[in-house]
């Protein structure tokens, strides 16, 4: 037990430092850790699951809570935290970055409470039933989500000026770029799913360079060239929230994150978007906190599904990575996972305040553009180490696609077409004809 607790703490502490680096995704680090475990295995050594599992859970839980810090202070979200950037940046630009980060952190804490005290006790009984009921309907639900994502993109131009083609094109440039981003990402996804160019010995990470290129690199590049000066930041002892706001954000974020965790290829960002519309929460604080809830429920909840007896659902990159070296069987595994989430969640939130203050101090000493460049270097090195030159090639192409929404002002969520389109096609039984049409089955 002490060993497991120590492993959770080690994972959480490591996640602290990883979370500060903008753009670095925890699944990339887990992939590297998995490679290390496989090499141990190859050398005749084996790490105990009582150590590796809590460590991995500590990494995911800690990161899903603490990566709020760079998303607010450095404007570098992962794909599930895209929506927190704008309100978070507002807080940063009025000198209240600390409060913004802590409010989202409070939401994350609510998310951990939901997982441990609400979802945890009931999931083994009800989730297998829900899965049985929903399984035949997953494909059309996924298409509805795709339609919703594409239809809720709104035109950002074409409001003024004389009627004509130029006004038409102005209005459609954003929408068109959004559709094109989704379509190109989807094509890239088909390519990676059916004829992944990554060396087969590292195929378990073949989608990673694409995700890095679509999401992480554009943000790091933008941060690196951004001319924005961050104003002086204030640190306060109180947060301008109450129980009512926490409850509302918990409901909205819990629904969004839970939906994202349960449905294949739906990420926390999409879940947050759906929940935001479904619950129509207008208060910016509720919105920010609900994104914190959604993020934790999505990342950590998806991992928890893997350990639920009777379900053992593989959802999210973390579960897929762990599945390569360990398959849970017993209630003991489930309690270990729940306990690890609770412990890591508690430690992570306790670290949230000092880490945010430390990051603010760091930003005073080191230009945050330099932090982004440093992080960019680490991410590129990680892609190279795991997937080699081919991975860098994929990453570069994905970066080209990932920059489209940035350049044309459309939604970055469209980049998720990389998974949504091929998986939705596969689940509907049309993946093979599409792949054959694209010449990927030759």
């Amino acid at each position, binding site marked *: 037990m002490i060993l497991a607790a120590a492993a959770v703490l080690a994972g959480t502490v490591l996640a602290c430092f990883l979370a500060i680096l903008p753009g670095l995704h925890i699944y990339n680090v887990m992939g590297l850790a998995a490679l290390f475990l*496989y090499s141990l295995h190859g050398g005749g050594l084996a790490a105990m699951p009582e150590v590796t599992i809590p460590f991995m859970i500590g990494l995911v839980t800690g990161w899903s809570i603490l990566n709020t810090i760079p998303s607010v202070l450095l404007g570098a979200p992962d794909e599930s935290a895209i929506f927190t950037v704008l309100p978070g940046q507002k807080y940063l630009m009025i000198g209240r970055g600390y409060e913004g980060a802590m409010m989202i952190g409070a939401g994350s804490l609510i998310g951990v409470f939901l997982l441990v005290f609400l979802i945890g006790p009931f999931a083994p009984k009800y989730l297998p039933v829900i899965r049985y009921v929903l399984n035949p309907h997953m494909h059309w639900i996924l298409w509805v989500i795709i339609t919703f994502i594409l239809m809720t993109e709104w035109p950002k131009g074409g409001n003024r000026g004389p009627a004509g083609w130029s006004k038409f094109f102005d209005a459609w440039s954003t929408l068109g770029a959004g559709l094109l981003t989704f379509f190109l990402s989807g094509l890239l996804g088909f390519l990676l799913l059916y004829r992944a160019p990554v060396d087969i010995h590292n195929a378990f*990470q073949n989608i990673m360079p694409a995700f890095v290129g679509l999401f992480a690199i554009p943000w790091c590049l933008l941060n690196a060239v951004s001319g924005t000066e961050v104003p002086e930041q204030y640190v306060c002892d109180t947060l301008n929230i109450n129980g009512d706001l926490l409850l509302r954000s918990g409901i909205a974020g819990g629904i969004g994150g839970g939906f994202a965790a349960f449905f294949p290829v739906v990420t926390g960002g999409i879940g947050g978007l759906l929940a935001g519309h479904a619950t129509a929460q207008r208060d910016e604080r509720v919105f920010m906190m609900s994104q914190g809830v959604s993020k934790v429920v999505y990342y950590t909840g998806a991992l928890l599904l893997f350990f639920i007896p009777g379900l053992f659902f593989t959802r999210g990159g973390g579960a897929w990575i762990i599945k390569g070296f360990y*398959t849970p069987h017993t209630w003991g595994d489930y309690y270990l996972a729940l306990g690890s989430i609770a412990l890591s969640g508690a430690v992570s939130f306790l670290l949230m305040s000092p880490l945010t203050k430390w990051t603010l101090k760091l930003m005073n000493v080191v230009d945050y553009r330099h932090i982004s460049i440093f992080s960019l270097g680490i991410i590129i090195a990680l892609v190279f180490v795991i997937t080699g030159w081919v991975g860098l090639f994929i990453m570069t192409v994905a970066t080209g696609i990932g920059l489209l929404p940035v350049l044309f002002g459309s939604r970055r969520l469209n980049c998720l077409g990389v998974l949504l389109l091929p998986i939705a096609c596969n689940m509907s039984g049309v993946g093979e004809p599409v792949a054959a049409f694209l010449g990927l089955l030759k």
Partner: protein
Amino acid sequence: MILLFVVLSSNNRKDYPVYGPQVKRPLRVRVLQYASLVLGVAGLVLLYLFSVNRDIPLIRVSDVTPTMNFATVRMAGEVTRDAYVFQSGGLVFDIKDGSGEITVMGGRAQAQALEAAGKLPRRGDRIEVTGSLSVSADQLTKLRMQSADQLILNRKRTATVPVAENRIRLADVTAAHKGEQVTVVGTLKSVDIPGPGSKAPYVLTLAADGAELAVIFWEDVFQGLDKKLPMPGKLISARGRVGVYQDAVQLKVWEAGDLRVMESGK
């Protein structure tokens, strides 16, 4: 870097001081945005060409490692378990390649395509199949087929010459031979095919010396014949076990290789 410059310069105002000589027609940022779009698409096309022009690696079962999860590979070997089509529509069979054994799985589309083409693998067949590896700890490693077209099948060779010692005249087959393995030769008179979903057998009625005999077999033999039945009028050699059903004598054939078209009967 051009792209980054575009981002930086997109907030230019009209009164922004010009640095250097003013050009006649300043380049619109939008043009560079479209240029970046072309670049992104070109990159995707190159990646596509790179991917489809690479050979899918042929690996052995013993080569599979956990890091190969999701890898698209080819595997070749001998089928050790007949393809089984689930009620849900998917199919499964096993192959071995000398270094180990692996389960190959396919979805409804692959199962239907293989069934329609009469290519459902059977024990002893040699196949080469392309698919995506599914590797997980404590669970069976699987190869998920991507397409039925990516399965190359070489049917197991079966005995083509009936065993001579059991050969008897068709007219001599009576209920007294029940349970015996015999070989008969006759002209195919008619073919009865079971309806969709029916569990009834296929019936070939052979005639010789004024007598008739029903030769019956089921779906697996039909699959073994690549779903091709001989035309009436052909001379057929059939080996099987004599049975009696509703007072009628019949010959039950269990292997596709036991049915053979010998020559034209007419």
